[in-house]
């Protein structure tokens, strides 16, 4: 899973020490990694904290649409796979929260920002999962788009983020393959099953293209983020790559990509494709997605209803300390 890039413009404050800033920029330009205790400009720290925590939130919220289907998976095999995938998403969230914490923001602050609605997460999770085929489409398309975004982040300039991405990418490939396998089986099934697969592709295609973020000309931070090697490819380049890779995968299982303008362009060596509905994208970013409120309520409920587990663990730890002190 991944978060569309939603940064606000990161300006370098004029109060930064120019010598330190120059040394930092030179290190980054030489593809060196920046580590937590190294000097870094405040704008770099802020940009990364926002990006990594949004990414972490997306992994955590990403468990919700899929979690809905664990008890309704069509076989024990599918259920075991989906459980493992959802557990992976939790793991990915934890790797990323840890990476973000090295920049000086506590886990508690990040979780509170998510629950209060202050923090953003990927718009993709504010769409509903209506049928079992949606679980296939999410794995294939949403995790596919996530992989495309995350592979270059394995070389992002901030060491803890890059290392978290190496782990995430290693685990993500199974997510995409199990999704494609679900779609493959449905597409080869009964007429109703194939219709269900096509319907899921129809609904998830455009939101998946939105996962790469706004078009380059409306992405003012891309330049700074690329200069700092936080980002290594532009939104439009990655989107193009995704379309080129995914179209033949849909063809291979007899499903149609829902875009009448999609065709191969020999000259550019890639597909031409239709315009994404950016008004819808910005509306969903602002929290107007079809199930945005439901998602946040489910997340807050899970946190509050399980508070007793955290309290019990705390009480037990305190008791052990007292016991040791008494001994």
């Amino acid at each position, binding site marked *: 899973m991944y978060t569309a890039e939603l940064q606000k413009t990161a300006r370098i404050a004029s109060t930064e020490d120019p010598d330190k800033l120059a040394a930092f920029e030179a290190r980054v330009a030489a593809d060196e990694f920046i580590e937590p205790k190294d000097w870094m400009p405040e704008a770099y720290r802020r940009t990364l904290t926002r990006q990594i925590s949004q990414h972490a939130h997306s992994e955590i919220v990403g468990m919700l649409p899929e979690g809905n289907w664990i008890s309704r998976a069509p076989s024990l095999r599918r259920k075991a796979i989906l459980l493992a995938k959802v*557990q992976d998403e939790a793991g990915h969230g934890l790797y990323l929260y840890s990476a973000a*914490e090295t920049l000086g923001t506590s886990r508690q602050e990040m979780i509170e920002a998510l629950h209060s609605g202050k923090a953003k997460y990927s718009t993709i999770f504010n769409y509903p999962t209506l049928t079992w085929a949606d679980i296939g489409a999410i794995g294939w398309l949403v995790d596919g788009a996530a992989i495309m975004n995350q592979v270059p982040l394995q070389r992002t300039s901030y060491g803890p983020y890059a290392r978290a991405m190496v782990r995430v990418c290693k685990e993500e490939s199974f997510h995409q393959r199990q999704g494609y396998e679900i779609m493959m089986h449905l597409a080869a099934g009964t007429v109703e099953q194939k219709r269900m697969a096509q319907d899921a592709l129809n609904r998830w295609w455009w939101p998946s293209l939105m996962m790469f973020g706004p078009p380059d000309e409306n992405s003012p931070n891309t330049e700074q983020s690329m200069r700092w090697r936080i980002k290594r490819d532009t939104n439009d380049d990655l989107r193009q790559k995704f379309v080129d890779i995914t179209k033949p995968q849909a063809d291979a299982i007899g499903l149609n990509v829902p875009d009448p303008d999609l065709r191969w362009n020999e000259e550019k060596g890639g597909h031409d494709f239709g315009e994404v509905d950016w008004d819808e994208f910005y509306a969903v970013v602002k929290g107007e997605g079809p199930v945005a409120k439901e998602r946040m309520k489910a997340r807050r409920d899970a946190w509050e209803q399980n508070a007793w587990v955290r309290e019990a663990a705390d009480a*037990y730890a305190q008791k052990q300390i007292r016991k040791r002190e008494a001994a």
Partner: protein
Amino acid sequence: MSKDWPLWEVFVRSKGGLSHRHVGSVHAPDAEIAVRHARDTYTRRMEGVSLWVVPSAQIIASDPAEDGPMFEPAEDKIYRHPTFYNIPDGISHI
């Protein structure tokens, strides 16, 4: 929970004969739960046969701002490497 549980650094031995290697960190109220969280977070795919957890606050690190004085003295001591010495051809097992 009004504040975060303490942070623990996690080290995994991937198989017998290899040393433990740092893989990341977890929050936990005590050592026992830290080990359980480390298992769930970092060894879901048989990545390890042994785990260490260490309270992060207990780790003392060198200062990156001082890495020059700390590590550069080794730079000009190339005679510590076997390739520094020219041994004529024909002399073997050395």
